[in-house]
Structure formats: C-alpha cells, structure tokens
C-alpha cells in the first residue's frame, strides 16, 4: 500500500516537472517555426502557438515508464503504448488533417494495442448489475470507448482551459473509486495524467498562451479510456464524462453523421465582440456550449466555469453510483 502511494506521488512529481520543462522548451520553438493558430473566440483573433500535445504526452510517457520499471507493471507499459499511438494519430491530424471517418477508425488501434498487452480483464463493474462477464462483447465496447472518449475530449477542447479543467472536475471524484477497487495502476495513470496536464492548463486557461491540438486531446481521451479499461471502471468513466458525450453525441445526431469540427457548415455558436451565443439558425447542431448559451450570450470564462460545474456534477454522480448503486 505504502509502495503504491509513493509510486503515485512519484508519477505526479515526475510528470508535473517534465511537463513544465517541456512546455518551456516547446512553446518558443512552436512560435519561431510558425506553428500558430488563431483564437477565434476573441476580438482581433490573437495568434496562439499550437500544438502543445508533445509536451503533455512526453511528460506522461516518461513518468509512466519510470514508474512501470519500478513497479514491474505491464499494464502501465500498455497504457504508455496505446496512448502514444493515439497521440501520434492526433499529431498526424495536427500536421495534415485526417478525414472525418478515418480518425474514429484509426482510434480503434490504440484499443487493440492495450488489449494485446494481456492486462485487460473483460469483467467490467456495472451499476445495478455488479461485476459482469463480457468475454465476447467486451472488445467491441473497448474499441468504441477509445473512439468515443477521444472524440468527446476533442469536442470539449473548444474554449480556453475548458478541456483540462473539465477533465479534472469530472474524474477527480473517481479517485476514491480507484482506491476502493485497489486499482493502483489505474490510479497511477490518472495521477500522472493530472501531473502532465497541470502546466498545460496554466498556459491554456483564459487568455490562452498555447493550444494543445488534436495530439493533446486524442491522447487525453485515450488515457482516460485506458485508465477505465485497466481498472474495469468503464461505466463509471462513461458517467463522469457525460458532458463530453453530450457534445459529441448531439453534434453527431444533429448533423446526421461523422464530420470534422472544421467541416460543420452551420456553426453551433456565433461570436460577437467576445460574447458567445447559440446560433439562432434552427439547423445549427447542438453542442454543450450552444446549450449553455441558448438563453443568453456569455463570455468565454463564464462558459468554462459552467462546464466545470457540470463536469463536477457528473463526476459526483458517477462516484455516488459506484458506492451506492453497484453490487460488489
């Protein structure tokens, strides 16, 4: 127990320090090489360096590899490999955009990589039902989970600081769940993810000094799916990430299929003088930001605060579901 606590603390410190150093090194290089994007939600559309994904993923990978070596855990190595593949798919998308159908299909590969590590037990804990035995269908669920989580996190990366802060808020209530299940590999992976995201959050919060890009969001989504899979808490992560699914599912349903965010013709929201509001066009797709601004226009920091509040509610619902509605 004490060993796992010290390994978790080590994972946090290593990923935090490495992420800070990588951000300091990467951002000036992104600027000098012209890797710049426009912040479209602000007046004057300021230029912001992108992508910071390599700084976030590499710090996570270094920390996880050190800890997996010390703990002798194959599961942690599987997480590093599968999230690494998701990061590479995202980086490819940052450099040369992938098609709207290619990306979700490619995101099945990280799930396969995690499955071949041999550390996945197809026996997820389910609310109401308890521990299930899904020997045949589990692998379809695993592949779907990677695609859905990665795209959900990608959709959530729309405003300054929104993705990392909502990831913290929705998954922090799951830390007691991982401890209660004794899933220390899941706990270490989640804490290492927090450590690598904190320096990014400090720079990405309003007004953003850096954007993560798809390399960051797809990696974070795959990391959350990996943590859920190795700890058999898939259903609880799905509940805690419900605000991420709201955006993903309703955009998918309202446009009638898979499309890239940049290819959606009628935008869900419109921006006027820094105020964001739902597009009055009835054909505009529904997104979480459109829902929040459907009644009145709001400024970016207020929307992010509300998304964090909603994420915290879903995280607490998930924690409550585990401790009170799940037979163990």
């Amino acid at each position, binding site marked *: 127990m004490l060993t796992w606590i010290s390994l978790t603390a080590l994972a946090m410190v290593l990923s935090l320090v490495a992420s800070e150093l990588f951000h300091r090194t990467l951002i000036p290089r992104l600027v000098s090489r012209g890797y710049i994007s426009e912040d479209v939600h602000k007046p004057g559309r300021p230029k912001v360096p992108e992508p910071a994904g390599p700084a976030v993923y590499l710090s996570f990978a270094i920390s996880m590899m050190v800890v997996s070596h010390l703990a002798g855990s194959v599961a942690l190595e599987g997480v590093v490999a599968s999230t690494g593949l998701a990061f590479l798919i995202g980086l490819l998308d940052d450099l040369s955009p992938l098609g709207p159908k290619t990306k979700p299909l490619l995101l099945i590969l990280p799930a396969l990589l995690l499955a071949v590590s041999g550390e996945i037990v197809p026996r997820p804990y389910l609310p109401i039902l308890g521990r299930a035995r899904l020997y045949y269908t589990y692998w379809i669920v695993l592949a779907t989970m990677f695609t859905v989580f990665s795209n959900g996190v990608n959709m959530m990366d729309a405003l300054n600081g929104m993705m990392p802060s909502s990831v913290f808020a929705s998954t922090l209530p799951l830390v007691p769940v991982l401890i209660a299940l004794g899933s220390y590999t899941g706990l270490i992976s989640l804490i290492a993810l927090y450590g690598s995201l904190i320096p990014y959050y400090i720079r990405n919060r309003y007004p953003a000094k850096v954007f993560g890009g798809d390399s960051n969001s797809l990696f974070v989504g795959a990391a959350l799916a990996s943590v859920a899979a190795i700890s058999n808490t898939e259903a609880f992560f799905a509940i805690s990430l419900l605000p991420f699914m709201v955006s993903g599912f*309703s955009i998918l349903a309202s446009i009638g299929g898979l499309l890239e965010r940049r290819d959606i013709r009628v935008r869900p929201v419109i921006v006027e003088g820094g105020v964001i509001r*739902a597009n009055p066009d009835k054909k505009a797709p529904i997104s979480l930001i459109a829902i929040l601004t*459907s009644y009145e226009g709001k400024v970016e920091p207020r929307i992010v605060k509300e998304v964090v509040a909603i994420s915290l509610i*879903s995280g607490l*619902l998930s924690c409550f579901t585990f401790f009170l509605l799940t037979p163990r």
Partner: protein
Amino acid sequence: MDKGFLLAIYSVISGWILILMSLSLIKVLIMTLGTKGFLIALIEVVVGFSALGGALYLWYLTLRALFLRVKSSPGKGHGGPGGT
C-alpha cells in the same frame, strides 16, 4: 442560474438516469432468462444495447426540443449589435 445552464444540467442528469434504466432492464432480462447459453447471453446483450441506443436517441430528441424552445425565447445578450 439561467435556462441554458439548467438545460445543460438536465442533459447530464437525464443521461445518467437513462444509463441506469438501461442497466436495470438488462438486470430484469438476466433474472428472467438466466445467463446459461450463448444465444440467451447474445439476446440479452443485443436487447441491452438496443435499449441504450433507443434511450439515447429519445434523450437527444427531448434535449433538442427543449434546446430549440429555450433558444427561441432568449434572455439578455441576444439583442446586441449584430444580433438576430
């Protein structure tokens, strides 16, 4: 707390209730049909996933109806410069 924020909270809580209802249906199926045999297990999984899919679509339709209603009766911030 405005109507948009309340609608977002509704979307999350209703999604959570739908997941629990789908799992409750699977539990009823398991208790009724048992878990012996591949075919029965397959039927349970197919019915369970279909129920979840159907419930999600129903959830989307109600959310869309509420969203359009709130959007068509906007509060402050909708009549500003360039507003429609």
